[in-house]
């Protein structure tokens, strides 16, 4: 049976990028409610993109999207969901463990939450 080739939607990338920008701008303004709304939208879109990248054998971009999704969840005030994603990434990409833990460390430093470490 032939494997279906999944192309990554330019429109999805654009919408995700703009939601992420809106989240960052709201964060810069100190508008935490607005930041959370847009960053959560970006997080879910990154997860869709990560699957699409995996199905098109673009593994580096898939990992980048998953790191971005987890970072968005964290900065949107959902660190527990972010930690689950980081932990899953470490399990799936053990050679990238140090890089993933560096991302977590930067979030713990700049966006501290009262939770246990990954």
């Amino acid at each position, binding site marked *: 049976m032939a494997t279906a080739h999944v192309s990554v939607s330019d429109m999805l990338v654009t919408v995700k*990028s*703009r939601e992420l*920008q809106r989240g960052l*701008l709201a964060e*810069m*303004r100190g508008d935490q409610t607005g930041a959370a709304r847009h960053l959560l939208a970006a997080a879910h879109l990154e997860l869709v993109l990560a699957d699409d990248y995996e199905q098109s054998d673009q593994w580096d*971009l898939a990992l*980048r999207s998953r790191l971005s999704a987890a970072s968005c969840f964290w900065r949107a005030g959902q660190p527990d969901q972010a930690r689950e994603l980081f932990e899953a990434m470490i399990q799936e990409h053990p050679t990238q463990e140090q*890089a993933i833990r560096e*991302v977590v460390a930067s979030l713990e430093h700049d966006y501290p939450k009262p939770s246990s470490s990954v």
Partner: protein
Amino acid sequence: MDISVRLIDPTTMHPRLLWEDIMAATVVMLSHTGVQSPFPFELAVDDLPGFGSAQFRLVIDPAGVASEHVSRLQRTYESSRLVELAAIAVVGLGLYHGGGHGIMDIALRGSGADYLVDESNHLLEVAGRSRRSDLGVAWQQRWQRLTDRMGSGFYVCVVEFETPAGRLAFKT
């Protein structure tokens, strides 16, 4: 090399991103240099794919950016945030005039963000600084970190708004 540009040009050069606040932040930062519009900006570009190296003198015309928006933005964002945003406008102009490159995507990586350039998906990191004296350290940090992580095939752009000037390079 003098290049006359409009600050609104990135909206068509890199249509996947939102530029309104970035353009207004750039007007705020360039106005602080004390130079009248159009604003000169010295940008060194090194080893850009399909282009090479050059010393750009961007002459930036802010026409089309509403003064009310600029005033509102100045009241809304801290100066460190304005510097971050303005740096993105400079890299957008530099990439386009240094080989016609386009920013395709932005993603978060922990506390920071990075970009993808062109269909080749080359990574780009951007930083802005208020003071010229901070440029060298910011450059070395990013260049070394990405070299350690990726080896080659990435862009770094660091700019400062005291002179103002900056550097955009591609690691081959």
